[in-house]
């Protein structure tokens, strides 16, 4: 498989507005791509489309070799999406949330405490999510993505709401993911933070990729 992501002429409508308006993009496996652009450019919709959550109105897209239109379940099982919503159950503890999502993803064997230690949340494992701060919830949400062991990481503003230590954790996880052979796509406004990690930068505006550049090919060996 040459490309982890292969999108051609993708159109995605939100209501009747074309959030993606004929977007094309190819990403090699093992790369880190920063998706940048103004608000409303289509960054989040691009990530959701790659996760099999935003249906294509036109065009085609394959993710990790699976067609997002005809094989959405296989796509979803292979990607990890960190979205602005933490997608955690407030009444459950962090450990219970992780255990639940690990079971649903078919990863019963995952070491929950190791995953929590990776995001510096192990001391809070038995604490209910409702009692956590925004940054702590964000860290727990990142741990949920990590335990899925995705082959494609889709990170939407991953540094938002995190303190300096949390931001370093995110950067470390991106490096771990690449070392494990995964592909990472990061939509972010924090260009200074993500650019050093990125091998490529895709500039999105008006629902299409205006510019795609290689910025740091040595970062992942791509």
């Amino acid at each position, binding site marked *: 498989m040459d490309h982890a992501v292969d999108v051609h002429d993708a159109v995605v409508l939100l209501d009747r507005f074309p959030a993606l308006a004929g977007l094309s993009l190819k990403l090699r496996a093992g790369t880190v791509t920063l998706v940048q652009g103004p608000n409303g450019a289509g960054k989040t919709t691009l990530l959701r489309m790659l996760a099999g959550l935003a249906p294509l109105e036109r065009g085609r897209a394959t993710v990790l070799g699976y067609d997002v239109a005809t094989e959405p379940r296989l796509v979803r*099982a292979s990607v990890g999406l960190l979205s602005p919503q933490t*997608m955690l159950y407030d009444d459950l503890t962090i450990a*219970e949330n992780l255990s639940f999502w690990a079971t*649903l*993803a078919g990863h019963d064997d995952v070491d929950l405490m190791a995953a929590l230690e990776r995001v510096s949340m192990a001391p809070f494992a038995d604490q209910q999510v409702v009692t956590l701060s925004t940054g702590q919830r964000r860290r727990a949400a990142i741990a949920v993505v990590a335990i899925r062991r995705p082959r494609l990481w889709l990170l939407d503003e991953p540094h938002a709401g995190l303190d300096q230590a949390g931001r370093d954790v995110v950067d470390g996880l991106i490096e771990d993911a690449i070392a494990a052979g995964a592909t990472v796509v990061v939509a972010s406004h924090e260009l200074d933070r993500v650019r050093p990690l990125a091998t490529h930068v895709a500039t999105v505006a008006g629902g299409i990729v205006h510019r795609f550049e290689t910025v740091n090919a040595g970062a992942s060996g791509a």
Partner: protein
Amino acid sequence: MREIWALARKDLRIEARSKVVATQIVPFAMVILVLFGLALDADSRTLRDLAPGLFWVATLFASVLAIQRSIAVETISSTFEALRLSGAPAWKLFAGKALAVAIQLLAIEAVLGLGIVVLYRSSFQDPVLIVTAAVAATIAIASAGSLYGVLAVGMGVRDTILPMLLLPIMMPVLVAATRAFGDGLGTAALNGWTWTGLLGLLAVVYATAGALAYAVVIEDT
């Protein structure tokens, strides 16, 4: 089965912490039994005769709230999207949600059963028939409710449309369960097992339809 049980256990654990069913839905169902008794202004014999129907009407109203709560657990945290992302087959997601609702409904029915004994002086003449009919009816209600609950979310008017969607298709369940309970409580000369057979058929139909349709309706949540 791991995924199904994990989903059901998650919902039951959330209920154990939030106690919405225990502190709001069960009392609501009991209030219905009391209100019927007051509104009908009937003697104990009449109430005993009407108990099967009143029991199932109270159960149906309570089930609407239980299903709304089951859906709210997911919508509050935007976790329907995470469930879709999990990669688990839709029918397993459906089965897990329906199983949790069914267990909660059975608990509500147990309390209501005590309620009709205390308030209406009902007596369980055929406990096996009553329990079998209750389980079959509960599976039917939980299955249809879990499907229609997600459908209502997709329509964007979840809190108000669910009773309008759910109660009409619950009419066969209401009729059959009332007849079966009529026999089980000794208030009607009917063959309760025939009606229980119909409840079993409805349970199979609603559960199968839910499992098959869930993959489609959950995409719109």
